[in-house]
């Protein structure tokens, strides 16, 4: 009993230590935002805010899994784009075809993830460069599928997406659902192996973990979450855009970092990334409501992302010694 209790204390402390900074950032972001945005707590504002959060939350969960496996997927944004334009072409304004569109988006995510996984795990290319290259393939294909913004999503979907159930925005429920999916996945052997491979691939290999297969899985899961992100974007905007995912890749990495997952792999979780994504989205909001001149918005946004990434590097400052 005492052993279990000690373990629990350890676990809670572990969560607090890494999660405290994330939660603090979230609190600050919410406080600043509610001060600046006049009706931040109104249900309409809440609903539309959450509606814009979902895509980033979904892609951040996917990026988390890839990062945990010791990789990085710079093609996730392009995958979101590709999945969204394929889905919008499939659905073509008809509610009947929506399930088909969902399947198509997931299929795209699966295929893109599998390609990345194969390239990284079997060809043994550096994940960062390999996914960088595939991102061009995916975004090129997206332009082929939908050369200019267009296509339409049935209004039932966009309406439902911005609706609320018993006063709770649907978008918030979707975020909760994403977090639940993560919790379920975490109890699966594949995720355990993802952590092991990201933590120490050599040790995992020696311990009978199928390292290559695990890496492929990580990218496939990343692709599937990118597909979910694409569907959320479509539901939010109502139409397709062949450039929509461009900004999401880096934001997803930043969300992962803010959420306390180590870019080196093996340590962290998607719970933090969900909060990190919300923090980032709030920052965009804040920049908007703080009357930052339009011309400076992107600069501030970029600077915030770099600062967030830098936060992850600060612990490294304390122990910078040759790894000899």
């Amino acid at each position, binding site marked *: 009993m005492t052993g279990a209790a000690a373990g629990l204390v350890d676990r809670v402390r572990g969560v607090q230590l890494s999660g405290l900074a994330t939660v603090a950032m979230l609190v600050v972001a919410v406080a600043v935002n509610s001060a600046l945005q006049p009706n931040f707590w109104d249900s309409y504002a809440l609903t539309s805010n959450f509606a814009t959060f979902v895509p980033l939350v979904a892609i951040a969960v996917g990026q988390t899994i890839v990062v945990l496996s010791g990789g990085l997927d710079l093609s996730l944004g392009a995958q979101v784009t590709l999945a969204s334009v394929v889905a919008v072409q499939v659905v073509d304004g008809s509610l009947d075809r929506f399930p088909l569109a969902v399947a198509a988006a997931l299929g795209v995510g699966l295929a893109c993830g599998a390609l990345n996984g194969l390239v990284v795990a079997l060809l043994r290319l550096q994940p960062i460069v390999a996914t960088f290259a595939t991102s061009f393939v995916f975004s090129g294909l997206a332009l082929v599928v939908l050369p200019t913004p267009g296509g339409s999503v049935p209004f039932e979907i966009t309406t439902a997406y911005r609706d609320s159930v018993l006063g709770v925005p649907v978008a918030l429920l979707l975020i909760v659902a994403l977090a639940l999916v993560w919790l379920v996945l975490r*109890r699966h*052997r594949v995720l355990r192996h993802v952590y092991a491979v990201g933590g*120490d691939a050599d040790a*995992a290999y020696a311990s009978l973990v*199928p390292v290559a297969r695990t890496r492929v899985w990580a990218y496939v899961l990343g692709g599937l979450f990118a597909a979910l992100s694409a569907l959320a974007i479509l539901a939010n905007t109502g139409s397709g855009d062949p450039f929509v995912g461009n900004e999401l890749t880096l934001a997803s990495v930043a969300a992962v970092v803010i959420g306390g997952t180590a870019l080196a792999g093996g340590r962290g979780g998607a719970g933090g990334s969900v909060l990190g994504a919300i923090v980032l989205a709030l920052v965009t909001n804040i920049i908007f409501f703080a009357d930052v001149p339009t011309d400076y918005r992107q600069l501030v946004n970029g600077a915030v992302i770099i600062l967030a990434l830098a936060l992850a590097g600060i612990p490294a400052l304390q122990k910078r010694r*040759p790894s000899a």
Partner: protein
Amino acid sequence: MSTPLLEMSGVRKRYGGVQALDGAELTAVRGEVHALLGPNGSGKSTLDKTLAGTVVPDAGTIRIDGAEARIGGPRDAHALGVAAVYQQLSIVGDLTVTQNVVLGLEPARRFGFLDQRAARDRAGAALERFTAAFAGRLPLDRPASALGPGERQIVEVAKALARRPRILVLDEATASLHKEQVDVLFDVVRELRADGVLVLFTSHRLDEVFALCDRATVLRNGRTAGTVELAATDEDELVRLMVGDAPHQAPRAARAGAAGAGSAAEGPVSSPAATLEVRGLTTDRLRDVSFTVRSGEVLGLGGLQGQGQSELLLALFGGAHVGAGEAVLDGRPLPLSSPVKAARAGVALVPGDRGRQGMFAVRPIQENLSLASMHRRATARLALRGAAERGAATAMVERLRIKIGSLADPVSTLSGGNQQKVVIGKWLLDRPRVVLLDDPTKGVDVAAKEEIYAIVRGLADDGAVVILNSSDNRELTELSDRVLVVFEGTVVEELDAEAISERRLISSALRLGPGETL
């Protein structure tokens, strides 16, 4: 005896310029505890790994139960009933103890969802015998990174045991264990033996080998030097198998006068009065280390390997975080804060892991030699002159008799001994006043070894302060004027010239094992 359970023959493995295994043989039977012995770098771990599937040998056959085993990876080895405790543990620090013990073979319910309770039970059962090591409470849910070295070692052992092997490899599994834990491990191993399991046991502590093992196979330079029944063998015999019957040489101290006279003609490199004084040096791995070395002296570092010798050299070179203490060279404090400053102050380090720390494998020999000293020859510290660099490198190649094709060849094309000479040579071009050598002849063939010895002697004779760590006791005997025996990060004994001998070094190192008195 019937068919042996395990027969390994003609196993060869080459790493770049190092022939780690050169036709090693090993035969062992069911219900045996078989020691695998040999000096550092003789290939024990590599042989273990070929059996466990993490290293694929270049050649050789492995038979298990008389049938040829094709081991292409750890999963093949597992299917054949092999489990290993690796010298470099296969523990993932970010996973909990339970997760580590069941890693790769997690009990699962339907669709691959984890059965956490079964995992805990399995881990608990595997660790139960060692409960005492964890202050009576198994840390099943703690991350492995939060454990001490001995505790991690036990988790690694438990993980191998949980795989219920027919063949269990224990590579230096006792090195970081305390006496009581070693006793528990030995009980477990004896039970396994009674159940017909073959245990391959590697340890530097010969007393453990005699206490536990039935037979021993000794490796030397990647080859099997012999297999002996331990009941009919004594320590002397084992040491002789490990070291070989090379003629015994007098310690360097006894010849010091003659050698010094011979090289005086070349002119001293530094002022003869140089003295290095180390006071109270303390780091993560070192405790209050103090000693003095005079110029022209070779100070050896002995003891069991991994007791902090390498850290001491690294710390003197500014490569470790120094918590307290100082080093003074000729009355001036040595900067211990960065390798760059140490190098500028005239300190040179020939590191222990040549591949990782010493050389730039893919770069030309020329650059490898020039790098430490090129700023001295460059115009405005920037522009290099090809002729000057080639001249300096060629001079060093000739002086150290490095066998090369062309200066433009990558240094990885050289043999281990010549690679090591390049690493030494880059520092000699910088005219160091203090030379730190960490196991400089590891993985080096016999002839090159002798040449490196000559270089080390020459350095001292030219007036440098030389500190030499070596896992090879004969090397320490031949080269050192004095030896400091290091144990758990601190100097526990000083052997002067008369006291240095291989036997004395081995016994000094071994007698200090935990639970034993001096």
